[in-house]
């Protein structure tokens, strides 16, 4: 479940897209392949963002990679792409894209869109690293996971409560028996005392 690359592009409805900021994690590939794979990722990201209409989300699959695209359009005409493997869950991918775009528009002023090289957005790398494990980073998934853990703990608790119930039953029976036996003992002792009063 890995993310390979993430990027934010400027996607005007007509014509070419330009990459504004991108980050990638190609550690799973051998050193010599990385250059060409990086080019491939950039090309892939640009192509799918060109083919996505404004305000639309899409997922495109190519061999082992899936690109999730969210073209937000709007005033800034931004588009975010994430390229990951097939196991990565779809919904957190899109929420990550939305978060990324919001952060980007908050931090980078629109005037610098025309000079992509001047944009400094290091948070994109942080996002990439953090979201390698979506169950921790995505809020909904984390809540779900914690709830599942809590449920397991509660099931164990109920089991132990049941065992406690059994032991308590045992104790009730035994104390009942003891009580009757001690009563018999008392009666016997009394009877013995009351028998030989003559002597």
């Amino acid at each position, binding site marked *: 479940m890995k993310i390979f690359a993430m990027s934010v592009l400027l996607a005007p409805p007509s014509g070419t897209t330009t990459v504004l900021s991108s980050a990638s994690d190609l550690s799973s590939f051998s050193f010599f392949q990385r250059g060409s794979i990086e080019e491939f990722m950039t090309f892939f990201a640009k192509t799918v963002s060109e083919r996505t209409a404004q305000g639309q989300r899409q997922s495109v699959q190519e061999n082992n990679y899936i690109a999730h695209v969210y073209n937000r359009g709007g005033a800034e005409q931004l588009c975010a792409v994430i390229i990951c493997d097939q196991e990565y869950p779809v919904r957190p991918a899109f929420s990550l894209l939305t978060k990324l775009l919001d952060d980007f528009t908050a931090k980078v002023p629109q005037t610098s869109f025309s000079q992509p090289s001047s944009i400094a957005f290091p948070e994109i790398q942080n996002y990439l690293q953090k979201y390698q494990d979506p169950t921790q980073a995505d809020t909904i998934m984390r809540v779900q996971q914690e709830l599942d853990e809590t449920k397991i703990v509660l099931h164990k608790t109920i089991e132990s409560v049941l065992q406690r119930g059994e032991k308590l039953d045992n104790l009730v029976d035994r104390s009942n028996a003891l*009580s009757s036996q001690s009563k018999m003992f008392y009666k016997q002792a009394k009877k013995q005392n009351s028998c030989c009063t003559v002597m």
Partner: protein
Amino acid sequence: MTSIQDRTNEFKTCVESIRSRSTLGNRGMEAKQRLLQNRSGTKSEFSRIASTIGKEISSTSLKLNKLGQLAKRKTLFDDRPVEISELTFIIKQDIAGINKQIAQLQAHAKQQEAKSASTSAEGKQIEEHNKNIIMMLQSKLADTSMTFKDVLEVRTQNMKESKSRTEQFMYTASTAANHPPSMLYNTQRGGADPMGDGSVAKFDPKGKGRAAQNGDMLALDLDSAEEGTGNANGSAFMQMQLVEQQDSYIQQRSTAIESIESTIAELGQIFTQLAHMVAEQGERVQRIDADTQDIADNVRMGHNELLKYWGRISNDRWLMLKIFGVLIVFFLLFILVS
């Protein structure tokens, strides 16, 4: 819906027709004519603007009626989302424009009030009349916007229903498209999204309304997929397999959140069960406690009795010897007799 209508022209024509019929009182007629002309000439700017606003409100309500008719339709396939979204957009803009105009009118009236500060009865009446007109226009606009809101609610309700019905009917088609990778080569930009651009401003920006459209487009896209296969195989280029998203992003989120909600409800149930069991076990513990008390008491009493007995025995040695003596005497007696 009543609207402010401008009837001074009718009044004029009536007066002229009456005048043409009667020949008496020419001077009176002239005076009346002058009065009419004055009135029509110096029609205040206020009433002009108010009448335009009234006309616009009536036209907006007409459009709203049409939108309501369109929204009420419950047919599955004849739905006209483009029209509805356009109408919605237009009506929204109209309402905003009317709002602005009313605000301008109000400012204008306040200005006039401040300028003239006339204490004459006529001036005060005019001011009050203007205020009343403004209030009436505002209330009419408020009514229109409430109706607009209701129509939109009805529309979203119907869309939800039609989507669920679409899912029922198109379920097999959607699963068939999901499993084999569909060779859709979708280069048309606006093709899959007829509603996204028109109503982005109106609906939730994440395009909640598009859910229905994706499901609908599926039947058409399967046809184009057949053609696409022929083309794509021929090209030596990278074959991009486009995975059509059946459930939009928002639906997935809502399902995830619903599952969280159900998990939390389950947890609540488990907790109540737990509490119930512990309460029941508490009662058992009480029983055990009472029993052990009884046991302690009984054993103590028995112990006391035995102590008494032991004390009696150990104090009565003399009596023991006496008893043995009596027994020996009896034995001797029996032996002597026998």
